[in-house]
């Protein structure tokens, strides 16, 4: 039972059904601003550092350091990894953590390092939060010694749009 509890994944719908129709945000161009950029054409990586702001569609990611990996003949972005003070904002929702990995093809962000999803007054924390950008939903996974915590305000102004 403890194992089951430790592997508990809490699936929380983040938006109304209409939000699912917003799929395709990952087809939008990824626009990044930063202080500096280091690129390595051998490794096919670009490292953005200093007040990094990355935007794709209606999602904005803030972090200290962002590593963009690209591959294939068209240099498609295969992975975006954020390090330090990661904050992802999409409409009224905000996800934070110390580290995050964004897979544009799957339109999925995996956040760790004390991750938290906040929507209005509602808060969910866990060991790992997987955030599905197009569906605007998140899966929160507990750790072996920590459980998922959720603070939901059913009567709040954001009722119906849980984190």
């Amino acid at each position: 039972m403890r194992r089951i509890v430790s592997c508990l994944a809490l699936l929380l719908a983040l938006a109304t059904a209409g939000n699912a129709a917003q799929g395709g945000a990952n087809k939008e161009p990824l626009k990044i601003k930063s202080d500096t950029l280091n690129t390595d054409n051998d490794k096919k990586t670009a490292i953005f550092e200093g007040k990094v702001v990355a935007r794709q569609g209606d999602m904005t990611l803030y972090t200290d350091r962002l590593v963009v990996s690209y591959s294939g003949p068209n240099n498609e972005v295969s992975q975006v990894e954020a390090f330090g003070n990661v904050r992802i904002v999409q409409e009224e929702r905000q996800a934070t953590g110390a580290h995050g990995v964004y897979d544009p093809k799957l339109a999925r962000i995996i956040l760790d390092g004390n991750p938290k999803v906040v929507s209005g007054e509602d808060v969910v924390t866990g060991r790992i939060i997987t955030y599905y950008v197009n569906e605007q939903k998140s899966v929160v996974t507990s750790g072996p010694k920590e459980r998922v915590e959720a603070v939901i305000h059913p009567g709040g102004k954001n009722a119906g749009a849980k984190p």
Partner: protein
Amino acid sequence: MHNFNNFKRFLGVLAVVASLLVVATILFRMQQEVAPKLSVRKLPLQVDVSLQKFHYTETKQGIKRWELTAERADYNKQADISYLSGVIMLVHGAGGVGDLQITAQRAEYHNGTRDVVLTGDVRGKSSKGYQFFAPRVDYVAARSLLKSSERVRMTDIGSELEGTGMEYYTQTRKFKLLKDVSAVYRQGGE
């Protein structure tokens, strides 16, 4: 008697005409010696040697590192600098990184350090497909480094990068944009 006088007059006129011809010939030759025609264009000040279709190759341990071609090169011996126009710099890549061709309107080639200062619509194009654009780029030969303090734009398949200040290591093809960076990645490589 009358005929004899006519003959004397004829000889006098002939002597005067011959003298005039001699004087005219001397004057004409003197004129030619004073102002000979210029067959070579005058060099600008501070230029000791001017070359058309300049080509220079830098090698290291028998391997070509880079080549510099220019429509014209004016060499100033005192400054030990060659001023180039219509410039093409070809940087040969090591380890399969491909060649990089840089064109510029003008360049200064410093003979002592072998550094090159490229100015005026500087464009770099790699055999791998990416390009960069800047108003001025300096090549530091000792570090195989292209650097610029100006606004630099780089394009590749599916991406556009822009920043102020660039460091581009030609042997490894790693580059840095030093401040105010903006980048756009288009999915699908459009």
